[in-house]
Structures are given as C-alpha cells and as structure tokens.
C-alpha cells in the first residue's frame, strides 16, 4: 500500500457479501440429506437406494441454481436463509421418500383410492418449481418497494384466494383446497399468506400515523377511533368467516395473528395486541361452540386417546403422540420407525411425527431450531431494512412463518388443537413448498436491499483537489 491512500476516504466497502459463507453452508445442506437418503435405503432395503445419484445431483442442481441467482441478483442477501431452506427441503424429500416405502401406506392408498402413487417425484417437481419461483422473484423483483404499488390489488387477490376454497368440496373436513381438474389441487392459503403480508405492509405504512396517534386514552390503553377500527374488524370478520365456512382453524389463526403483529409493529401501540387477543378469543370460543368440526378437533386435543374407547373421530393425534413417544431421545433411526401407523397425511400434516420418531427428540429439536433460525433471520432482515414498507413486509412474512410453524407443530404434538396446515418445506404438498420458496425469495430481496452498501456518491466537481490559483 502506498502512503498516498493514508488519507481517510469514506468508500463503499460496506458489509461483506457473505456469498462464500452461503456456498459453504449449502454444501452441508446438500450433503446431509444425501446421507440421510442413503441411510433410509440401507435401513429399509439393505442397500443404497437406486435413485441416490439422481437425487443427489437434483438437489445439488437446485442449490447451485439458487445460489448463482442469489450471487448475481441479490449479492448482499442474508447468507443463512437459502442453506436452511435447502436443508429442510432436502430432508423433507428424504422423509417423504421414506414414507413412500411404507407397505402400510401403500396398502391404505390402494384400499382407499384403488392405486398408490409415490409422492416423492411430485415433491421433487414442486421443489424445482419452488426454486424456479425463488429465482424468478430475485430476477423480476429488483426492489421490494415495487410491491407497494400493488397494495390494493394484493388485497383483492388475497380475498379471492381465501374465499375460493368455499366453492370446492371439503377434504378430510376442511375446505382449504382448490381442485383444478387435470392439474391437481392447490392450497390457496399458502399463497394468501404472502399476498396478505404485502397488502398489510402497504396499507399500514400509509395509515400507521392515523392509527397510532388519533386515539383516546382510556384506562391506560389507547382506544382507536371508530373509523380506524374498521380494517381490523374487517380482517377479524374475515378470519371468522374462514373458520366457519372452511372450518380451518389454522388459516384463520394465522391471518389474524399476522395482522395483529403487523399492526403492533406499525403503530407501536400495545393496545392493539390486547384488542387482537380479546377478539381472537371471542371468535375462537364463539365458533367452537357452534362448529362441530372445530369441536371435534378441540375434543381430540383435550383427550387424544378417547377415540379408542368411543370410536368417534380420528385417531391421528393419538397415533402421532405415540409416534413421538416411541422415538424417545435418540429415535429409532431413519427408516426404522412406524410413523406410518398415522395413516392419511402421514407425509404431509403429520410429517413431523416421522422426524420425532426416527430422529428422536434430538432430531426434532434440531428441526424446530432450524425453523426458529429462519424466523430469526427474517426478523433480523426487518430490523436491518431501511424503509418502513420493507420492515413491515419482512416482519409480516417471518411472523406468518413463525405462526405457521407453531400452529402445525403444536397441533401435531398435541400442544394446541390440530389444524390443517403443513410444515413449510418438509411436508409433502406443492402449494406449501412453492409458496415458501417465494417467501424466502422476498426475504432475501429485502435483506439484500438492507445490507447493500449505499451507492458511491456521484463524482462532484468539488471533489477536485483545491488548487491555489494566482489571481492577477
């Protein structure tokens, strides 16, 4: 270094991009599932699975494409999110393939539908679509603030997505599916989660001052004005309607919780949380009193083993609990458990039971911590974001993700009543995996904007060294 640059100049070095950290972590995120895949094959068939090479290459290809896209289009994005999502997606494929090998589930499918089709190829295709959407988000969404323009279009789109399933027949008691003949079925709730976050972020960014300041103080709480109360009542009513017409406790809890979190962040008013909790309590109790499907879920939660004596309802929760319990601390080992006893939805809503039984408490906690880490990186992105819209959108997405984890894992482990949602990335289901890849894409875009060094100031004429000019 020459002595000349000794003079301090504020340059645009900024934060390191951390892309190589991401790459190193991605290697683990690909190698771990490949080993798990080999483990399952050895445990079940006594030999390495025949699809091992293609599975390993496929996962590597997905990770590489995703990584290159990040390197090119979001070079300063958070380095942890992509490896974590890849690891979960890869392990999810392993668990789904493991359950595809279950003779019991094959027999069950043949008995019920006349034929059995493995879920793994479909899930692999959906994962590829998910990564494609992820790359698409990074390429097309140059700046997350563009989404702000679509605030009210998002609202309409979210309403349509939420209402759509009402017109389709319920599956296992819950109307959360849209069946498109020839294409398959879609869970619009998963996409609505993202679109609603966009709407809330755009709406609240505009209205936050009115909501926060124009209020009366009553008993230490800030009561909002009637007209400001309107939107929260609309969202509350909507989630109640979802609960009544779609009998989907999870989705309605998710949307209402999401709205309360974002409202609280936007206004910094604790009173909104109090209102939110009160209203959701009233709604939940009210609907549970009338809706038999929700009642059944609550009863199954209160006494999961009652089904064996009464013969009423489903034994899935009890089977899931026994699956967890049989796993113990270290688990039976991949491929050696009997979580397929859960029967239907063993590889989607209940996939966490397979994790718990075969990888034990240790493995289950690792999975929960990975999810926790994704949420934490999302919240960190919200903290780092420089614009209010980005902050609100990031906290909305990560809050929705956290609520979904809690609602699904809590339901499967018997902590709260069971709801019809899936574990992001791990569970079999196209909508879930595609939507969550998009969610990670948006978070990466926000974090890239947040961590990107400020552009170098334009060279100005003043920057020229001062010259002493002899004036005649």
């Amino acid at each position, binding site marked *: 270094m020459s002595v000349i640059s000794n003079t301090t100049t504020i340059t645009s070095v900024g934060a390191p991009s951390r892309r190589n950290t991401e790459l190193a972590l991605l290697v683990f995120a690909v190698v771990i599932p490949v080993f798990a895949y080999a483990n399952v094959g050895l445990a079940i068939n006594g030999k390495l699975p025949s699809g091992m090479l293609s599975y390993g290459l496929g996962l590597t290809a997905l990770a590489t494409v995703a990584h290159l896209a990040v390197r090119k289009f979001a070079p300063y994005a958070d380095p942890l999110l992509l490896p974590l999502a890849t690891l979960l997606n890869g392990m999810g494929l392993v668990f789904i393939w493991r359950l595809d090998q279950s*003779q*019991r589930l094959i027999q069950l499918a043949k008995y019920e539908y006349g034929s059995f089709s493995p879920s793994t190829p479909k899930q692999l295709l959906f994962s590829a679509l998910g990564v494609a959407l992820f790359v698409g988000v990074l390429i097309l969404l140059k700046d997350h603030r563009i989404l702000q323009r679509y605030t009210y279009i998002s609202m309409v789109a979210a309403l349509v997505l939420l209402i759509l399933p009402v017109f389709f027949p319920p599956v296992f008691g819950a109307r959360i599916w849209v069946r498109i003949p020839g294409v398959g079925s879609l869970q619009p709730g998963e996409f609505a989660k993202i679109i609603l976050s966009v709407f809330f972020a755009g709406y609240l960014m505009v209205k936050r001052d009115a909501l926060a300041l124009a209020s009366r103080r009553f008993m230490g709480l800030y009561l909002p004005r009637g007209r400001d109360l309107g939107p929260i009542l609309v969202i509350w009513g909507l989630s109640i309607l979802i609960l009544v017409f779609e009998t989907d406790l999870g989705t309605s809890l998710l949307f209402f919780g999401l709205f309360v*979190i974002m409202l*609280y*962040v*936007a206004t*910094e008013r604790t009173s909104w949380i109090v209102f939110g909790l009160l209203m959701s309590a009233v709604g939940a109790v009210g609907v549970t009193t009338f809706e038999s499907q929700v009642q059944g879920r609550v009863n199954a939660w209160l006494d999961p*083993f009652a089904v*064996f004596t009464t013969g009423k309802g489903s*034994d899935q929760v*009890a089977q899931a*609990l*026994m699956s*967890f*319990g*049989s*796993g*113990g*601390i270290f688990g039976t080992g991949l491929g050696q458990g*009997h979580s397929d*006893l859960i029967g239907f939805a063993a590889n989607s809503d209940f996939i966490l039971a397979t994790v*718990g039984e075969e990888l*034990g*408490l240790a493995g*289950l*906690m690792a999975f*929960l*911590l990975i*999810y*926790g880490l994704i*949420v*934490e990186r999302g*919240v960190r992105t*919200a*903290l780092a974001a420089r614009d*209010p819209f980005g*902050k*609100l959108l990031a*906290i909305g997405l*990560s*809050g929705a993700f*956290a*609520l979904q*984890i*809690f609602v699904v*894992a*809590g339901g499967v*482990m*018997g*902590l709260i009543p069971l709801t019809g949602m899936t574990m992001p990335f791990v569970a079999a289901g196209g909508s879930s995996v595609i939507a969550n890849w998009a969610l990670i894409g948006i978070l990466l875009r926000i974090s890239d904007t947040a961590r990107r060094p400020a552009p170098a100031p334009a060279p100005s004429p003043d920057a020229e060294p001062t010259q002493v000019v002899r004036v005649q």
Partner: protein
Amino acid sequence: MNKPLRRVAIFCGLLVLALLIRANYVQFVQADSLKNNVHNRRVAINQYANPRGDIIVDGKAVTGHTATNGSDFKYKATFKNGSMWAPVTGYASQAFGTSMLEGVEDKVLTGDDDRLFFNRTIDILSGKKKQGGDVVTTLNAAAQKAAFDGLGSKKGAVAAIDPRTGAILALASTPSYDPSTFAGNSTTDSKNWNQLKDDKNEPMLNRALRQTYPPGSAFKVVTAAAALENGLYSSIDEKTNSPVPYILPNTTTELKNEGNIPCENATLRVALRYSCNTVFGKIGADLGRDKMVAEAKKFGFNDELFVPVRAAKSNFSTTMDKPQTALSSIGQFETAATPLQMAMIASAVANNGVLMEPYLVQKLQAANNSVIEQHTDKTYSQPLSAANAQKLQSMMETVVTSGTGTNAQIPGVTVGGKTGTAQHGVNNDKNPYAWFISYAKTDSGSPVAVAVVVEDGSANRGDISGGGLAAPIAKKVMEAVLNK
C-alpha cells in the same frame, strides 16, 4: 419501528421455545407411557419382530415360531400339542395379546428383558438378529399327558406338585383350546378366537389355576390338621365326641352323613376313611372360626399366588358364624379352592408338614443357554408339625387302602388320599364336583402330590364321586411321575 420488532422477535422465540418444551415433554417425560400404551401397535410389532423364545418341558420345546409375511408382524408363535399345554403356555397371538407363561415371561421370550441386555449388545456387535430367551418349566411331560388324557372329554382340571420342592409337575384343564388356531392376525384367527370366547364350556379358562370349586370332603384333611395342631385330639385312634346326627350349633339343622356309615364318636382315622360330615363339622365348630381360618391360611387359602402365572385366591370365609364354620370345615358354605390349592394341601401333608411354594419356571435362559434366572426352593409355610403330618399321612393312607379312595392304589407304593364330592347349584340340582387329592410316597420322600377335579362326568348323579371319577386320573398321574 425497531422496538416493537424486537418484541415480536421475542414473541417468535417464545413460540419456538413452547414447541421445544412440548417436544421434550412428549418425547422424554411421557415417552415411556406413550411407547407402552395399550393402543400402540408398535408393542405388538416389536413382540413379533424377532423369533420368539421357547417354553421348554423336559428339555423339549412345546412352543416355537414360524416366519410370516403379508403383515407387519414378521413371526408367529406355534404350539406343539397346544391344547394339552395351553394351561401352562397360554397363548401368544399377534392380534389378541398373550396369557399365562407367554404373557408373564413375554419380555424374556421377546428378548427385551433387561437381564438380556448383555446378550443383546453382543448380538448387535456380532451382527446377529435379536433372539428371545427360553423359559424352562418344571413340568413333567408324562404326568401332563396322563392328566390330560385322563380327563379326556370330561370337564375338569388336574394339578400335580412335587411336595419336596414345590415344582409343578402337571397342570391340565379340559375342555382346552389350541393356541395356534389364533396365533396370527387373519380373519380365520379372529373367527377362531371369537368362537373360543363365546363357547359356553369356556375352553380358555385355566381351571387348574384360575377356577375355584367347593372342595367338599377333600377339605376334611385341613380340618383334621387343625384338630391335631390345636390339640383338640392328640391321637388319631382315640374316640371323638361326635353325635350322629349332629345339630349345627345355635340352630335346629341336622348335619347328616352320606349313607349309613359308622360315624358316631368315630376316631379321626375312621372318620376320614368314611368321610364323616358329623365328626369334621363338629371339629370345625369346636375349634371356632379363628383357629380354622388360621390353619386354612397356612395351607394357602385367602392368598393370591404367582407361580409366576397368577393363581386365583382360594376362599375360606373369615366372617362366618359358628354353624357356618361347621359347614365350611367340611368344604361347604363359601369354601372354594383351586385344583392347585388342593394339591398344595396333599403336598404339605406328604412333605411332613412343610408346604413348599409352588412354582412353574425352573429357569430363564438366554438363546445361548446362559442362565439369567434360576429358581430356588422356598418354604411357603408349615401348616402342621412333622409328627402330626405323619399321623395325617397314616389317616390318608387308610383312606386309600380301605376307605373311599381304593381306586388310587398303586401296587408296591404307599399312597395317601382323600375323596370329595361337592354339591352345588340351587338345592344341589347340578352335578356335584368330584374331587380327589392324593400323594405317593417312596423311600426318598414323596415325589408327587396331585389334585383332580371333575366337574360333571355323566348325566348319572350316582356315579359321580371323588373315588369313582377323579381317583383313577390321580393314580395315572402319580404312576407317570413314579415311573419316570
């Protein structure tokens, strides 16, 4: 906006923490109860995931296993001569659980017993499959066959014990069932199971251990022991103070004898030989409830035994009044005993007053024949002194040489016994139970004591008596043991 963001971050952290705590609760705190929950099919899957160990009699396995396919159970239990051994082995069914030795020693048979941990570890390290341990029983195959064949198509049970050790030599119950007919979990298995469950003859009832019958006159051995032990009569050949008929105390009810037999003031020997109700009824009343209860208790009444299969509690009332005590002392009123209990009575007398604790399992061993548990003989009680026991032996031998039990005579062997014919049903309208308890003696003590009960041999009531129906079966069982 950063302050609420941090709070939301804490909230999300709490959600994950709640999940972690719940995971620990379900997979650690509740793990064992969920793992062994009755509704957890993994228990059964694990039970039949490996070849089950065998139950061994006289060095030969009476149970086995066969590989199955088409279900989540890999192996199925098999039974050789299942109906004969059913009261001992019980069943091990993929669909319907286990019973008797298959149930009690299930952990050893599946290889899950903690004491097999070392063997299991070695197997894992050497790459062998998990193997179940074996249960070596005390049974005598010849005696069991004699008992089962002797009962034949009759309804009844036999229990035989080695009085010197308490080892159970035979345990037969008829009608019986073949446990292999429902060892699997197919529809045929369920059909067979339901058929057996609904059969009004209760083939799956283990009469030798689990059914109590009024013992009738066979109980008089206990009453005689009580009289000698409490010094009511010191010699078995002195005259007793016994009127005929005997009026039950505090009542006007006459207690009579069966037929015209010399019971008035009869000696104990004569009274037992002819089975005098009057003499033994009066002894019970004279001794009183407490002394009779104490003696019955020493013989094993009012106690649930585990051999290690549970044997039902035999009953001798502890709350009866004086006339009821008199009736109880001749094996009526509420007195009820299992065949095993009655064999224990004969066994205590034959073993000079010492009652050994009955047991069914000689040893438990791992698949490589290393012993993991060995039975050691235990004294259950001493209901009577050696001197009194010898007096009682003399009385019981008289019964066989010249009394009601002549059908049990074995040439060249000293046999002692007692018959019993217990009435039951409203106004005794049902066929009585025919009892015979006996023992055989050699120079080296008594190797066998046996109790036989036959519920209803034929439609002809007159034919049913302990000496006629039960004694020949007892004789065959004793011969089988002696000829060994």
